[in-house]
């Protein structure tokens, strides 16, 4: 892990014998199946999204028989649709709250907290965190539907209240849910990052009287900045595209948790507005690209 992240920041290591030992044909042959799969099922759909967004294609209705090229009409429609802006806002709040603030901060805190703790208990706690991450999405969604149920959910039973969390605080509910769900990745990544720090730096600082907090601020964080950015980038993108909250709230009530993926699903696959849905998808891709570029910029600036 450390190696890979470093290679992204430094020069690529010279490994292997360079281009001479594998004939191009052999290389091509070994590469091509994966290449075909990736191009057809990843690259091509992405490109096609952009094209479809320029048409008024529908699955039913007259536009199904005769789809027309409509240029940027779908895009202007999306940008003037309050539902789109609502969805974008909800998604940004969701990403900021559950990924950047939630998962990353909690994940780092756990990695930092546990860094010197060598005990069976650590493994058990880590297991709990990781379980939250690997349990299948449908199960986890239902666990939280049950957990947050107003009348008889576990949370309310313990607190002795009867708030309908998913109706009154839907966005908060899914933010907490997603934090719970994805912290494991950040914890593992930061754990590896911390483990890669040469202990001498920290020891020197400790001897010089630096508090834990100061060590963190002045030595640790700057050293692992690359890890932090990589982590934030990945979890931001993953969270941005996450569909799981649909299984908990269905995008409701009244669109309060209608994330962009859910909004696209409703437009494209319940209204069958495939052209319009694609345009929104394209917008989403562009936003993701902007985010990614932002992070990459920060990383490059550092080096």
């Amino acid at each position: 892990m450390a190696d890979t992240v470093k290679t992204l920041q430094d020069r690529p290591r010279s490994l292997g014998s360079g281009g001479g030992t594998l004939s191009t044909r052999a290389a091509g042959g070994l590469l091509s199946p994966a290449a075909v799969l990736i191009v057809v099922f990843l690259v091509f759909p992405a490109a096609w999204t952009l094209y479809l967004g320029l048409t008024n294609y529908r699955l039913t209705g007259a536009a199904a028989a005769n789809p027309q090229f409509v240029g940027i009409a779908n895009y202007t429609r999306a940008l003037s649709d309050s539902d789109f802006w609502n969805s974008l806002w909800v998604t940004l709040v969701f990403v900021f709250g559950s990924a950047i603030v939630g998962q990353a901060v909690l994940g780092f805190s756990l990695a930092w907290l546990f860094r010197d703790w060598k005990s069976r208990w650590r493994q058990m706690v880590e297991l709990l965190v990781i379980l939250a991450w690997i349990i299948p999405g449908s199960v986890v969604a239902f666990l939280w539907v049950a957990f947050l149920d107003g009348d008889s959910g576990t949370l309310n039973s313990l607190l002795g209240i009867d708030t309908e969390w998913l109706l009154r605080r839907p966005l908060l509910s899914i933010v907490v849910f997603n934090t719970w769900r994805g912290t494991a990745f950040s914890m593992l990544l930061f754990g590896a990052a911390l483990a890669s720090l040469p202990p001498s730096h920290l020891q020197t600082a400790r001897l010089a009287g630096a508090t834990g907090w100061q060590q963190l601020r002045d030595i640790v964080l700057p050293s692992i900045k690359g890890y932090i950015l990589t982590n934030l980038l990945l979890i931001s993108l993953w969270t941005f595209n996450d569909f799981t909250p649909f299984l908990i709230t269905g995008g409701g009530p009244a669109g309060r948790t209608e994330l962009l993926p859910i909004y696209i699903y409703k437009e494209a696959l319940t209204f069958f507005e495939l052209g319009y849905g694609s345009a929104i998808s394209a917008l989403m891709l562009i936003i993701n690209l902007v985010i990614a570029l932002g992070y990459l910029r920060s990383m490059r600036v550092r080096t």
Partner: protein
Amino acid sequence: MTAATSQAQHRRAIGESRRFALRVGFYGMVALVALFFALPMAWLILAPFDQVPTLAAEVPEFTLSNFERVLNNRLALRSMVNSLLLVVGVVGLVIVTGAPTAYVLSRIRFRGREIFLYVLLLFSSVVTGTAAMVPLFLLVFNLGMIDTFTGVVLVLAGGTLPASIFILKDFTDNTPPSYEESARVFGASPIQILRDIVLPVIRPGLAVVSVWVGVNVWGNFLLPFILLRSPSRSPAAVLMYSFYTEGGQADLRLISAFSLLYTVPVLLMYLYVNRRYGFRFFGGLKG
């Protein structure tokens, strides 16, 4: 006893009580964290064994009858088999196509190789499922593969390949090329080299990728939801969703036992890989 020593003792005592307080604080936080993560999961281990499960996690009236219900439900069992088929298909395809690719990318350097991989990885994070659901849907539709496992397997494989290659490449980067060179000198073909020299060494990487991909496919909801039609082909992720959105009351006995059965394989897979290879993402770095 001199004043100095009693002062030193005093300082030590403060130091000790401070350490004690810190320790208590530490364990307190650990407990909170553990509680936060464990509470929602409690239901999963309590309710399936409860005679009359409710939405709250409570001490069960022990029974195994809920599991009987699942076993007697044709669709429920079928769906787990479907999930398994998808996992096997995708993991197989990913490894068979991804390992050679990772190997090639390790051995051949071209300008911008790192950027290329990184971009591909980003791309796959963004495109799979949600952003491209419309064209994926149309693509599979035009290929006549709606409601087939093949369609789902191909799409999922395409989506998880970049990340898998990324992971595997780190492992293949770490295998010394010297053996390969000797083998090549003796006339071994690339395939043989791959099979007999490289593969055994990167086995931990293959295991990690298998778990990574396997877990993702086992739990994947959106793509089968969009691409499959018949309930008899639904994997467990999709079928489960229909359990609790069905008209009438959701059958908690069925849902609880089904959820647990559906979760166990993934848990076992993780535990196995973790024990054998240590579950860390990249390379052989342990914590």
